[in-house]
């Protein structure tokens, strides 16, 4: 299952509630969250928070910067948020690549299929964040 969601210029922490809402409309709530694999693909995730965090460091200095945004600088912060929202404890991948790159997306699809077969996953969720 593939779902496209949009981050745009928003900070990740502000965008994620809307993103999980979109995912829930597309996929519903999982019936067995231990048997789901999550595969997030984005070229963009973490960028807005990284830049905002470093602007704060410039403004306040390294000793006084607000650490609240730091976890959101990591590209996998979105996949972690989605996992927490749905309680998904299976494999949790974050890939970085241009989301319109079909060969690359195919790599993700193949890995998800491999995991589904090898690990007995009931569902694999591929989420492309633009």
């Amino acid at each position: 299952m593939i779902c496209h969601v949009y981050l745009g210029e928003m900070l990740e922490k502000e965008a994620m509630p809307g993103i999980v809402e979109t995912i829930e409309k597309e996929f519903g709530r999982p019936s067995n969250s231990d048997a789901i694999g999550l595969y997030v693909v984005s070229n963009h995730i973490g960028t807005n928070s990284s830049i905002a965090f470093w602007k704060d460091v410039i403004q306040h200095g390294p000793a006084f910067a607000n650490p609240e945004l730091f976890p959101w600088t990591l590209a996998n912060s979105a996949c972690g948020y989605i996992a927490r929202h749905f309680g998904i404890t299976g494999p949790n991948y974050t890939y970085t690549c241009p989301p319109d790159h079909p060969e690359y997306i195919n790599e993700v699809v193949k890995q998800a299929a491999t995991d589904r077969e090898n690990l007995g996953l009931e569902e694999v969720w591929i989420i492309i964040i633009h």
Partner: protein
Amino acid sequence: MNNSIVITGIGVVSPLGIGIDILWNNLLQCKSSLQYFAELDAAGYRNAYACRVTNFEAPPIYRGAWMALEATRQAITQSKIKLPENAGIFLGSTLGESMAYEMAAEGADLNPEDYNTYSLANAIAKAYSLSGPIQALSTACTAGNYAVGAAMSSLQRGDTSVAIAGATEPFSRIAMVGFTRSRAMAADGCKPFDANRNGMSLGEGAAIFILERKADAIQRGAKPLSEVYSLGLSCDAYHPTSPHPDGRGLTRAMNTALQSAKVNAGDIDWVNIHGSGTKVSDAAEALALKNVFKKNMPLLSGSKGAIGHALGAASALELAICVKGIAAQTIPPTAGYSTRDTGIALDCTKEPVQKEIRLVLNNASAFGGLNASLLLGACTS
């Protein structure tokens, strides 16, 4: 499906040496690369101690790519392989070239996404004119294990005949400030599982491996260094930065790795622990180890007291140590570990231990609740 996958080459850029043999010799002497950096102090950082690769020159904004390219060069040399055009690249990193994001915030005219993990993987592809599959894994401190696991899957599917896999992470000022302000850093160094541990030391580096199907490696006369059996993955789905305190996620990752390879926990000879040196992370990992191994605890060692925590590159660097340890049939000492924590109640190596090593688990955990446990072993005939 051709299931047996082997490593035939290792390349390393680490704060304790460039090249696996230099790193290994320094590990056996229980050295630490932790240093004071005056420029961090002068810039107002609360913690000016880190584990950096001080003898590696690169343009600052391409440091991650250059470290990956140097490690790739070493791995290819050791493997003695002529790369086919369809060789795949499976690379992990947390931030990619962190400096690009800092420069963008400072107003530089650049797109930081041109410097992310994907760009680092592409740099390797371009350097060797490769057109095989590329996977760029941004799974934070577990990225090295993820990348090697992805390479294993691709080889087993027959998508590529040779895989260049590993991870790279240049020193990141974003991470230095972020972890310091999150009170996760220890100025006196990382002490994995130790009673007096109080945080991590930031590192940097790269480790790259050449992976092949075992039959192909043997056919071309290569000498496999170790066999990669399985990767167990899980997510705690608990907290953005803290592991679940009962260690359930890492327990699942280790159990998945063991079950996938049809290996019993009692057959594991050595676990390279994640051992970040923070109170909560080490406590959760200790519980996970007890959940899996119960009274048959294998020998435990950790590397972050020696080389720091290289974030996305950490589990790749530690995998290089595991592969070298298998070849040398030696488990290195755990720099920074000296006093048993009564809460953890597990010991790490204090001296090099020579013993028969057949099976090893390399553990990694990350922000976002990720857990990745890679099972590897001595190459069987």
